[in-house]
């Protein structure tokens, strides 16, 4: 019951702020991030639009950003990240662990 209610609230809240956010894009390509360094303003929410242009599935994972997103080949999705303090926050592709990237908040 609580779960259903909370889910409904989340669904209602999502489109409300999805449009006006600072947005950066990221491409995942079979173990490569393009770009591997994303610059974002510190202290504000922002959105990363992620596209998997590779031939294999990819998972954008970042514990510092508290995000995990699986993308099938060709899929596009996004994550909305909470305001960050200035600093560097790592992310990686859990399906191709050699792929590392950072978000730099200034």
């Amino acid at each position, binding site marked *: 019951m609580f779960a259903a209610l909370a889910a409904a609230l989340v*669904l209602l809240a999502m489109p409300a702020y999805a449009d006006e956010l600072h947005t950066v894009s990221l491409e995942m390509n079979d173990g490569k991030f393009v770009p591997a360094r994303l610059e974002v303003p510190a202290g504000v929410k922002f959105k990363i639009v992620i596209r998997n242009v590779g031939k294999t599935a990819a998972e954008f994972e970042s*514990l510092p950003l508290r995000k995990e997103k699986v993308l099938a080949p060709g899929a596009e999705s996004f994550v909305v990240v*909470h305001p960050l303090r200035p600093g560097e926050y790592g992310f990686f592709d859990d*399906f191709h662990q050699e792929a*590392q990237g950072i978000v730099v908040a200034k």
Partner: protein
Amino acid sequence: MGQVLFVVWRESVEALLVIGILFTWIVGRPDSRRWLPYLWGGVGLGLAGAVALGMLILFAGEAMSESAQTLFQTVLMLLACALIVQMVVWMRRHGRTLKQEMHTALADEVGRSHGWGVLLLAAIAVAREGSETVVFLYGIGQHLVLFEFVLATVAGLALAGVTFVLLQLGGRYVSWRWFFRVTEILLLLLGAAMLMSAVDNLLSLDILPAIVDPLWDSSAFINDGTAMGGLVASFTGYRAYPALTSLLIYLAYWVLVLGLLRMPRATRTPVGA
């Protein structure tokens, strides 16, 4: 992948322990031939029950939208964490007398000549471990590539078989006590890690407030933004940039767990109270 392996390994050893106790007891009886089909029937039924639960969870999750899916997974992670704690506490209290308890139950069933009772006993034991495995795996492994997932599961089962044989050989290499002690600690750590992932989800869904975010930055020590650091995090719940809420919940978890484990058995009120 390591987590999947560990969960399958530990849960299978526990299921094997129960089946092993039932098996040796039945085999020791003159009319064992009559009872063994019930035992294997029970094992099969328990496995089928666990698989059915797995399918149910999988399809329920797939039918949902993305944020509902995140929430569903979060709820299952919390359930898995509670199950882990309950299981460790239960094994602490019953582990030593498990064999005796099962023998008494078996003697009762055989005394009444109820083969179905033996079947049910085996089915419940296997279904219990099996459905725990299913819930744990959904909590940690749903993003794994299918091939890796199957590989880890099969390896975990094989490893469980080897461990079980070694433990049965009379503890020349490893002892049950040692096995349970070490895996208990690992399980509780895994429970903490699941709890932290669940809290992360609740924080990003704005269901929980972060209060202070982040509380500190220990990424220079272990950076959880890398694959290696992520591995440490997924086994312990470590965070390089923890929110105050996460820290408080993490501490509360360990206080609760240690409290439950220290509570002596004698002071427990009888079942039903």
